[in-house]
């Protein structure tokens, strides 16, 4: 939406005022996933494979999840740091404007420095794709994009849930980190390497499996039977945000009936 674009522009101008800080932080944001990737690389150097998955396959999985995380970190930063918005009483100002609360919160913060992480995952993605000896079709490319988009929706949804908690309490928000940071750390490996119950939880309750694992099987030609459900699995990720929006609405209603 055009208005969102304008929000981003003003935030960009805002952050550009602090140029050195921006560059330094971006580099730092690049290094964080990079060091994790380095760890991954060394582990594979030593072990060769993990539960039947080769290095470049895992690298692909890694890249997709980190890309989704980086993008959602950029966009949904407003929800991530929502606790300060509510604490300052600035949410009142959001309610006084004739636009949806979600749009305004999304527009309140855009963290450009996370681009560093995004860049890193893009590099890994390109590298992994180049090393994998696969047949790339249009459908696969679309599935790839679909996967990333789906991941973005899941992470954003979790950020939104964490932010909604702020309507009730400021403390204890770290729990959400289990699912964002923790979810990312976990999903960067193909879910197949974990125990059965882990796989099940993260396929049906917080559908990382649908984002990463199932379509990944399709991309790497490891599927058996009909391809279609594997391709369409990311839709579950995108749908995940719907209950999150609902919970958000409930949170706003609660805020408006109890004051701040």
């Amino acid at each position, binding site marked *: 939406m055009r208005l969102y674009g*304008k929000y981003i522009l*003003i*935030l960009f101008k805002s*952050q550009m005022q602090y140029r050195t800080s921006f560059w330094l932080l971006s580099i730092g944001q690049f290094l964080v996933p990079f060091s994790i990737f380095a760890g991954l690389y060394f582990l594979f150097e030593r072990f060769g494979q993990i539960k039947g998955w080769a290095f470049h396959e895992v690298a692909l999985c890694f890249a997709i999840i980190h890309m989704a995380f980086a993008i959602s970190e950029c966009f949904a930063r407003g929800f991530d740091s929502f606790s300060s918005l509510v604490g300052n009483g600035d949410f009142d100002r959001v*309610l006084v*404007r*004739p636009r949806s609360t979600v749009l305004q919160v999304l527009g309140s913060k855009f963290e450009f420095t996370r681009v560093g992480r995004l860049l890193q995952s893009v590099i890994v993605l390109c590298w992994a794709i180049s090393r994998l000896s696969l047949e790339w079709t249009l459908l696969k490319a679309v599935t790839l994009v679909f996967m990333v988009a789906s991941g973005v929706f899941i992470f954003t949804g979790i950020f939104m849930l964490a932010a909604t908690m702020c309507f009730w309490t400021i403390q204890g928000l770290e729990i959400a980190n289990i699912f964002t940071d923790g979810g990312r750390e976990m999903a960067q490996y193909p879910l197949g390497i974990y125990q059965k119950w882990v796989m099940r939880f993260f396929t049906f309750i917080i559908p990382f499996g649908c984002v990463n694992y199932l379509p990944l099987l399709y991309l790497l030609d490891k599927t058996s039977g009909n391809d279609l459900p594997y391709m369409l699995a990311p839709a579950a990720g995108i749908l995940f945000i719907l209950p999150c929006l609902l919970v958000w609405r409930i949170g706003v209603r609660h805020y408006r009936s109890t004051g701040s």
Partner: protein
Amino acid sequence: MIKIDGLSKSYQVAMRSSGVRQAVKALFKREYKVVDALDDISFTIEPGEIVGYIGPNGAGKSTTIKVMSGILVPDSGSCTIMGYTPWKDRVEYVKHIGVVFGQRSQLWWDVPVIDSFDLLRDIYKVPEQEYRSTLSLLTETLELQDIIQMPVRQLSLGQRMRCEIAASLLHSPSVLFLDEPTIGLDAVSKIAVRKFIRTINEEKGVTIILTTHDMNDIEALAKRIILIGKGKKLYDGSVSAIRDQFGTRKTITAVYSHQAEPFQVPGTVMEAWSPERAVLSVDTEQVVISEVLIRLSAQVELLDVAIDTLPIEDMIVQLYKEHQI
């Protein structure tokens, strides 16, 4: 235009007492106290009025403002503003109101003021032509030409306040809620802001609801005061009525040739005294001014006399006392 009837709102406030044992208890069971922020508030405001909404801290002022601006949903009662119910028709309603919170900024901190204005134009979907004319009017009357290109963080408080008020008027609202608009401003800025508020009220007919602790704001702007205390509406009338009620007290400042000894003027209270100057307070219901002057000149050789009414601050304090708040 604004019609409030039987508005009530209670909060549950968590009780917390000091001490470690209490803190541990609090981990398991929270005790709550019910606070009546608003108790059956009713009033009507006609378009074009400037109303001062006053009361001690915690009286329920900000709660009322929040209900009227659509932020808060009351427990009971009705509120109709320009035909809308604020909390129900929030998105539609909010297009017609402007809010200025004195202590919080609605402008983006690091970018030039004009960028914030442009973004607000887009948020409120103001047509370009209308925006241009409103903007030039506001820039001119608030004298923003020099500061409109500067980032907000570089502005002084007075400059920022002028920009905040301009920002709240960009979409030409019909109702303006001002919450402590002159707080922290220097004298010159205060006068400028007041003048501006009067102007937009007179020329554009904007209805203004003013919450403030600065009684000079009230005196300069509002013809009507609504006093709220402990959630109840205690007074709803004109400022001049208050003046009539409490305005019978006058202070007389007398300058005279050197008088070494302090003196007494029957019927007055000596508030301050020096060999050259004295301040007396008189209740004109008890003694007539002319009589006081006669008695005074009998005591000293008067060089200069000034007669003032009790400042409005003190009148309001009297009003609070009367209502036991």
